[in-house]
């Protein structure tokens, strides 16, 4: 994804080479020298600043949800069921985003849902990155049949739609929050495995890692002190790019009623229950939807920007 097309620092750098590749007849305007503000915005495009701001706000909410939320996510107020939000013609300022079918405050539930969805996506991504990197390095270290097995698993994982695998596992094992997080941790591990395997093999064969091994370093030192720190930026960029996908997967499964189970609440789960009231109280479903879209969008923008800055080789 290239959201920051043509405005990022890296795009400016190879603009000259691209100029030559343009179809004949196209004229690219020359860039005029710019001031300090312009240079600042070239390094930090406004879209990236906005996205970072949104992500920080979400993290803040996740950290301080107990203080921020006016009500518990399970607190019911049966006299005030399906109250519309204040800007939707509602009059009840105690419920800024209205209430749901059981009179629970939508805003408070939304804040708790943000925490839950971010936590699941965070741990899921972290598990996937750890697992994938571990398997990739294992393959690079042992080669031979270990590598063949890992490569086969990578092929399998990449060729089956993960949603189907996830649904099958949920059917067979039932659902619990821990299992669900572990399941999210299996999403996309093959990407980290591919990256770390490739980088570790080339480092071992011709680079610094081979040289350090030649100095007599044990394997833990080669991987822990040299290879991992060197590939960390690439892995972090891939994690950032995978994070929104994990959020979408989590919310999709929760929407289907197969992810986070009540009384716990997550963004997808709120949309799923809000859908029943789409005619009478669409705000229940719209509020979490907006959060999902803005959060995934923000993280994608930041991920693309990070990739352009740290690791342009990653596609």
């Amino acid at each position: 994804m290239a959201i920051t097309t043509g405005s990022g620092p890296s795009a400016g750098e190879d603009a000259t080479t691209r100029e030559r590749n343009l179809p004949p007849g196209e004229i690219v305007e020359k860039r005029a020298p710019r001031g300090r503000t312009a240079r600042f915005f070239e390094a930090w495009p406004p879209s990236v600043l906005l996205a970072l701001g949104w992500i920080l706000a979400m993290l803040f909410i996740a950290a301080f949800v107990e203080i921020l939320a006016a009500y518990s996510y399970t607190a019911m107020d049966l006299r005030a069921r399906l109250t519309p939000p204040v800007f939707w013609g509602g009059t009840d300022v105690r419920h800024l985003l209205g209430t749901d079918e059981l009179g629970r405050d939508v805003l408070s539930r939304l804040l708790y849902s943000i925490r839950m969805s971010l936590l699941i996506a965070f741990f899921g991504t972290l598990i996937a990155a750890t697992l994938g990197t571990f398997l990739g390095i294992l393959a690079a270290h042992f080669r031979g049949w270990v590598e063949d097995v890992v490569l086969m698993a990578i092929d399998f994982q990449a060729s089956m739609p993960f949603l189907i695998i996830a649904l099958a596992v949920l059917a067979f094992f039932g659902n619990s929050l821990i299992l669900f997080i572990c399941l999210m941790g299996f999403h996309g591990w093959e990407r980290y495995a591919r990256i770390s395997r490739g980088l570790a093999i080339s480092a071992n064969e011709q680079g610094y890692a081979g040289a350090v091994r030649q100095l007599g370093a044990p394997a833990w030192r080669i991987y822990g002190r040299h290879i991992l720190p060197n590939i960390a930026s690439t892995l972090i960029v891939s994690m950032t790019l995978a994070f929104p996908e994990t959020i979408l997967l989590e919310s999709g499964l929760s929407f289907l009623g197969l992810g986070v189970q009540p009384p716990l609440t997550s963004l997808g789960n709120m949309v799923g229950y809000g859908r029943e009231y789409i005619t009478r109280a669409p705000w229940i479903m719209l509020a979490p939807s907006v959060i999902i879209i803005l959060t995934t969008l923000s993280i994608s923008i930041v991920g693309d920007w990070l990739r352009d800055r740290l690791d342009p080789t990653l596609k």
Partner: protein
Amino acid sequence: MTDTPIVPPADRPLLQVRDLARAFHVRRAGGFFGRPATLHAVDGVSFDLRRGRTLGIVGESGCGKTTTARLVLGVLTPTGGRVEFEGEAVPAPGTAAWRALRRRMQMVYQDPLGALDRRIPVGQQVMEPLAIHGIGARAEWRSRALELLDAVGLGATFFARYPHELSGGQRQRIVLARALILEPSLLVCDEPISALDVSIQAQVINLLLDLQARFDLGFLFISHDLKVVRQICHEVAVMYLGRIVEQGDPDQLLVEPAHPYTQALVSAIPIAAAARRRPRLILKGDPPNPVDRPAGCSFHPRCPAATARCLVDIPALKPLPDGRLVACHVAHGEAGARPRAAA
């Protein structure tokens, strides 16, 4: 691992290589279904190396020079023959004994930038071997690293620099310092100067000679540059397709080569004085694919002097009257029939 280095008796070579061979199983083009084949990268190589001496190995790319170096270092296990270092066989790669042996044998690379971790200041990398082998107290590492930096001609200001901030020659000095901090007795140099600017090459060669005298190092010096080899080597071995074809004193061998292949290599050295210009022998064709090594003398398809015997009989590496070793029927006067017509 004791802390006192084992000094070999004077009569025993530092490094003894006998009938060393390494074959690789490869597949011909066609991927998974390609026919399996055997590639003899190194085949029946023998040589000795003493402390304080330099053995040069020269040859075209793909002749098995680098594989020989990797076998000597024990990074690869030989499929035949043996390597003895200070009187003992080199252990299997990756074992604790092999790792401990790294204190005694070290390597210098062709590409110093690739051999350094870009993320770590070079001073830290110079002292890393001490950390790996747990030598001395942590507090002494830094001063030891500074000593080595000084020995390779770099000041203390370089300690905190990163590899990308240094020039090619400076990086190679860092690699040397890192290798020498362990006080090895053997240094394997795989094309250590070929990636450097010509102006820097001489500096690094002088540094190598200086360090050899200072630390009584044995060098295994791999290169395709005959002039450099003649400058620093006490003995030189010419390799062709995994075998040594000629071995001896560099002055003798590079002035009056006996093997047709060496003759061709020597004739390719550029000479400034026009008066001393010799006829240039240009080899026909590329070196054959090591997977399809010709029968008999493997050089015969490109050899201007090949006879019928060369096509069937592998020549042995035997001494000539002047003491050098040559593997050639023609040079030994055993070729029999007249040279066949040039094809």
